[in-house]
C-alpha cells in the first residue's frame, strides 16, 4: 500500500519534472507519451490500491516540517473518500491528457503544457491524500499555482494573462482564510493531523468551531468558486479547453467540497456553520444557473454550470448529506469533463468559434461529438435515470430530510435551479447542434472524439454507483463511504418522500427540456435567437454574472487603485523621491560654491593666498594681544 501511494504521487510529479526539464529537447511524441503514461500508471496504482484496500491506512514517508512540538510529516491518509477521489482524478485526468494530445497538436509549447498538467494532477492528488493540513495546503497552493499558469497559458494575449491573475488573486483571498484556520487549529489543539482534529470537535468551544468553520468555508468558497468569490471561474475559460475540463471536472474546484467534507466531523458540530455552508451552496447554485441561461459563449455556459453544480455539492455538505455530495462530485467529474471535452471538439471543428449563436446544425456534421455531448447534457440536466439525476437527487433528498424553514427554502431554490439547469443545458444543445444551416467544419483528431465515449458511459451509468435505497439495496457508495466519520450522518428521508422528490425532479428536468425544445427548435429558433441577440430586458445583468465584477470593481478594486495611486504619486514620488531629490540638489549647490573658486586664473589663487595670510595674521594678533 505504501508503494502504491508513493507511486500515485510521485509518478505525475516525475512526469511533470521530466517534461519541464527535457520536454523541449526531446521529440514531441516522447513528452506526450510520458505525460499520459505517468497519469495512467498512477491510475493503475490507484486501482491496485483499491483492490488491496481493506480499511483506512495512514502512511508516513518521513519528516517534513518539525520545529519544537510542531510536527507536519509527509504522511498520507487513504480512506474510502480519498481513494474514490484518487481513482476518479487519475482516470478523468488520464482521459484529459489523452485528449490534450489531439487538442494541442499544433501548439509549440507542448512541454510547458504537459509539465503543468502533470504537476496539476500531482498537486490535486497531494491535496486529496494529505493526512495533515499543511500538506493539504501544499497541494491546495500547488493547484492554485498550476491553474494560474494554465489559465494564462497563452499569455501573449493580455486578456488571458489577466484571467490567470484574477483566478490566482481571487482564490488567494480564500486561501488566506484557510491558512488562518490551520494556524488557529494548531494553536488550539497542538496538532495539524486531520484525523486527530476531527476527533476534537467536542473539546473546542462552540463559538470557536463556528468561526473556524466559517474560515474553512471562505477557503472552500475561493477554490470552489462559490459566492462571493465565484468571479474568477467564468474568466478561467481563457485557458486551453482541456485545462478548463481539468480545473472544472476532476480537480481544483472540487477541492473546496473535499475540504469541507473532510473537516465535517469538526465543523459540522456547529449548526451555524452547516447553515452557512448550505446557504452558500444553495444561493450559488441558483445564482450561476440564472447566469448560465443568458450566456452566449459555449465555455462560459459550462463554467456557470460548474459553479452551479459545485453549489449543489456544497449545499449537500451543508445539509450533512456528505455521501450525496461525494456522489455528485464523482458523477459531475465525469459528465462535466465530457461536456468540456465535447465543447473543445466543437470549438476546434469550428475554427475557435465559441459563440453559440454562430453555431447550429452540428448534429449531422459531428455525430461522434453530438451523442456523447448529449449524454453529458442529459446528466447535467438531471434527466431521469442518468448519473446526474441520482446524485443531484441524493443531495436534494438530504436537504429535504433536514426540514425547517431554511432548508425548506433551500430545497425550493435547489428545485428551481434544477429547472433552470435543464433549460440552459438544452438551450445550449439545441442551439449548437440543431437547426440552423450546416457550417463548415475541420476534421478532428480521432483521439479527441474517442476519449468522450468512456466518459459518456460513466456519466450515464454513474447512477449505478449509488442507487436509491428504496430499490431494495443499500447504494454502493453509501456502503463504501458510510464508515468515514461524518458520512454516516445526515438524516435519511423516507422512501416515500424520496420517490416523490425524484418524481418532482424528473418533472422539472423534463419541463426544462420541453421549454428549451419549444423555444429553440424549429421555426421559433431564428426568432428567439434574434431577440436574444438584440438583448432581452435584464439579460445584460445575467450575462455579466449579476454584475459582480462591477460591484467588486466599485467596492474594492477602484478604491484600492486610487489608494495605490495616492501612495505612488504622493507618497513615493512626491514624498520619498522628492526628499531625496531635494537633498541631492542641496548638496550639489553646496558643492557648487567652492567650485566657483577653481577658475584657473592666477589672480584667484593669489587672492586666496592673501586672504589666508590675513586670516593667519589676524589670528596671531588676536592670540598675542593681552
Amino acid at each position, binding site marked *: 500500500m505504501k508503494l502504491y501511494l508513493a507511486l500515485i504521487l510521485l509518478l505525475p510529479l516525475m512526469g511533470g519534472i521530466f517534461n519541464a526539464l527535457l520536454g523541449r529537447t526531446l521529440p514531441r511524441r516522447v513528452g506526450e507519451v510520458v505525460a499520459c503514461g505517468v497519469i495512467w500508471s498512477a491510475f493503475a496504482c490507484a486501482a491496485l490500491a483499491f483492490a488491496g484496500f481493506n480499511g483506512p491506512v495512514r502512511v508516513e514517508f518521513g519528516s517534513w516540517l518539525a520545529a519544537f512540538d510542531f510536527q507536519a510529516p509527509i504522511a498520507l491518509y487513504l480512506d474510502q473518500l480519498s481513494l474514490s477521489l484518487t481513482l476518479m482524478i487519475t482516470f478523468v485526468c488520464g482521459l484529459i491528457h489523452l485528449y490534450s494530445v489531439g487538442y494541442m497538436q499544433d501548439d509549440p509549447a507542448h512541454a510547458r503544457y504537459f509539465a503543468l498538467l502533470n504537476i496539476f494532477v500531482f498537486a490535486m492528488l497531494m491535496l486529496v491524500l494529505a493526512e495533515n493540513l499543511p500538506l493539504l495546503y501544499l497541494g491546495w497552493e500547488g493547484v492554485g499555482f498550476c491553474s494560474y499558469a494554465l489559465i494564462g497559458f497563452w499569455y501573449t494575449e493580455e486578456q488571458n494573462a489577466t484571467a490567470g491573475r484574477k483566478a490566482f488573486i481571487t482564490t488567494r483571498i480564500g486561501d488566506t482564510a484557510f491558512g488562518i484556520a490551520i494556524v488557529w487549529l494548531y494553536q488550539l489543539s497542538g496538532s495539524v493531523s486531520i484525523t486527530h482534529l476531527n476527533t476534537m470537535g467536542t473539546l473546542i468551544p462552540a463559538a470557536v468551531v463556528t468561526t473556524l468553520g466559517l474560515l474553512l468555508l471562505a477557503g472552500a468558497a475561493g477554490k470552489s468558486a462559490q459566492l462571493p468569490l465565484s468571479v474568477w471561474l467564468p474568466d478561467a475559460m481563457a485557458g486551453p479547453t482541456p485545462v478548463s475540463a481539468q480545473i472544472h471536472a476532476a480537480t481544483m474546484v472540487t477541492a473546496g467540497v473535499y475540504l469541507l467534507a473532510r473537516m465535517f466531523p469538526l465543523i459540522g458540530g456547529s449548526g451555524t456553520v452547516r447553515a452557512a455552508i448550505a446557504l452558500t451552496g444553495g444561493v450559488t447554485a441558483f445564482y450561476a444557473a440564472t447566469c448560465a441561461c443568458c450566456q452566449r459563449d459555449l465555455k462560459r455556459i459550462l463554467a456557470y454550470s460548474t459553479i452551479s453544480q459545485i453549489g449543489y455539492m456544497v449545499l449537500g455538505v451543508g445539509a450533512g448529506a456528505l455521501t450525496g455530495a461525494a456522489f455528485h462530485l464523482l458523477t459531475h467529474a465525469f459528465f462535466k469533463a465530457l461536456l468540456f471535452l465535447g465543447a473543445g471538439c466543437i470549438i476546434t471543428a469550428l475554427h475557435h468559434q465559441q459563440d453559440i449563436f454562430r453555431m447550429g446544425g452540428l448534429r449531422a456534421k459531428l455525430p461522434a461529438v453530438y451523442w456523447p455531448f448529449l449524454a453529458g447534457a442529459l446528466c447535467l440536466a438531471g434527466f431521469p435515470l442518468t448519473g446526474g439525476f441520482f446524485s443531484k437527487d441524493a443531495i436534494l433528498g438530504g436537504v429535504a430530510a433536514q426540514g425547517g424553514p431554511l432548508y425548506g427554502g433551500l430545497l425550493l431554490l435547489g428545485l428551481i435551479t434544477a429547472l433552470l439547469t435543464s433549460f440552459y443545458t438544452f438551450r445550449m444543445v439545441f442551439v449548437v447542434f440543431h437547426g440552423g444551416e450546416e457550417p463548415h467544419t475541420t476534421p478532428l483528431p480521432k483521439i479527441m472524439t474517442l476519449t468522450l465515449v468512456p466518459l459518456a458511459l460513466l456519466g450515464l451509468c454513474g447512477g449505478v454507483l449509488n442507487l436509491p435505497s428504496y430499490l431494495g439495496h443499500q447504494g454502493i457508495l453509501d456502503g463504501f463511504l458510510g464508515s468515514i466519520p461524518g458520512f454516516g450522518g445526515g438524516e435519511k428521508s423516507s422512501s416515500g418522500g424520496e420517490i416523490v422528490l425524484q418524481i418532482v425532479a424528473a418533472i422539472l428536468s423534463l419541463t426544462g427540456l420541453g421549454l428549451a425544445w419549444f423555444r429553440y427548435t424549429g421555426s421559433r429558433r431564428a426568432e428567439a435567437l434574434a431577440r436574444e441577440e438584440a438583448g432581452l430586458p435584464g439579460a445584460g445583468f445575467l450575462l455579466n454574472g449579476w454584475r459582480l465584477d462591477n460591484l467588486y470593481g466599485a467596492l474594492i478594486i477602484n478604491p484600492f487603485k486610487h489608494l495605490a495611486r495616492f501612495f505612488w504619486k504622493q507618497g513615493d514620488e512626491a514624498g520619498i523621491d522628492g526628499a531625496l531629490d531635494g537633498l541631492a540638489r542641496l548638496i550639489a549647490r553646496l558643492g557648487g560654491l567652492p567650485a566657483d573658486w577653481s*577658475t584657473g586664473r592666477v589672480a584667484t589663487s*593669489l587672492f586666496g593666498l592673501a586672504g589666508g595670510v590675513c586670516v593667519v595674521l589676524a589670528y596671531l594678533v588676536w592670540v598675542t594681544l593681552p
Partner: protein
Amino acid sequence: MIVPLEHILILAGLLFFLGMGGLLAWRANLIMMLVCIEVMLNAVMLVFVGGSARWGSADGQLFAIFIMALTSAEVSLALAMVVYLHRRRKTVDTDQFSEMGG
C-alpha cells in the same frame, strides 16, 4: 646694535605687504608681478639678516645668501617662461591664462 629689531621687522612687514599689494594689483603684467615677488623675498631676507644680527648667529645670513641664489634661479626660469607665454599669446596679462580652470 643701533637699529632695534622691532624697526627692522616693521620695515620688513611694510615691504612684504607692499609687494603683496603690488602682486594683487598688477596682475595685468607678469613681469611686474615677478618684481613684486622679489620685493617680498627681500623683505623676508631682511628679517633673516636682522635676526642674525640680533642674536649674533650666522644662520640667518646663510639663509639670506641661499634665498639670493634661489631668487636668481627663479627669476631666470620665470623670465624664460614669460618670454614663452608672450610668444604664444602676445600678452603677459595673467587673467588671460585660465586653462587650468575646473
